[in-house]
């Protein structure tokens, strides 16, 4: 069992035991180990826990980040005040 999976659980203190059905090998030709992705792939598949300053809206900040990283998809997980 790849230990990064356990790291995900410890990130938020989630406890749920794993049951393993069978042993299996993964082929290194496909995909990337989630914590060892090349930076350009990581940029496309990641979360930024951002301390947003008051003033600009969440949408504005998401748009700035999109431009800063030349991405075509950036979202945000919730606003505080929708004015």
């Amino acid at each position, binding site marked *: 069992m790849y230990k990064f999976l356990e790291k995900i659980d410890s990130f938020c203190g989630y406890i749920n035991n794993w049951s393993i059905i069978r042993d299996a090998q993964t082929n290194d030709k496909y995909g990337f180990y989630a914590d060892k992705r090349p930076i350009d792939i990581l940029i496309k598949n990641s979360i*930024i*826990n951002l301390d947003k300053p008051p003033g600009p809206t969440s949408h504005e900040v998401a748009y700035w980040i999109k431009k800063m990283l030349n991405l075509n998809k950036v979202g945000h997980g919730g606003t505080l005040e929708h004015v």
Partner: protein
Amino acid sequence: MNLVSKSGKEYVCVMQVHCDYKIEELRNIIQEFIGEIYQRPPVRSSVKRRTRKKRVYNIELLESEGRLVLMRISSEPGTYMRKICHDIGILLGCGAHMRELRRTRSGVFSEDNNLVTLHELSEAIYMYKKCNDESDLRRVLLPMEFAVCGIPKVVIDDYAVDAITYGANLNAPGLIAFQEFKRGEDVAVMTLKGELVAIGESLVTSNEIKNMKKGAIIKPKRVLMERDIYPKGWKKNEKT
């Protein structure tokens, strides 16, 4: 995204009370707001102003100075802190309003882990682009897999991955390991390399899996991995 925005929140908020009050009286009133409350969204709100039921998990009175009160509140998403402050004021008899608000936790993401400012982010991007140093950027970017921290997960075989990215159900033969889950629960589908493939709804309980040789286990609701990263497994299976 929904997984984060639809999960529990925690706030720290400053409330201004419009008259002098006894701290004990305030404490008692705050206690009444823990649990299920009825709340009508404020005038300036983005949802329909219909009275709705929300659950407040906890309110902690952190500090008070004069008429200002600092509180930590954890609640269901969609609960208006502004309204809670207002309603506390009504029960106190003289009114109160919210002065400042900061969200300290959204789902599994809290201020304690990797919180960065826009400034730090822009510096990290600068270091990466101009100096070819990606170490700062790597510190800032959390792999998307952390978003599924709070839900059960299953690990699948390399050959099952691509079919899922095309929307197929996860069937028993592709399953390698699992955490316990109930029927109808959100479950994250992971590869052996720890990558998030999709989030789906479980069609069975994890107890039933042990006796399953075939059949659908998880129906994907949201696929996060791109197609064709893993080889197509189903074509080979058809021939055999």
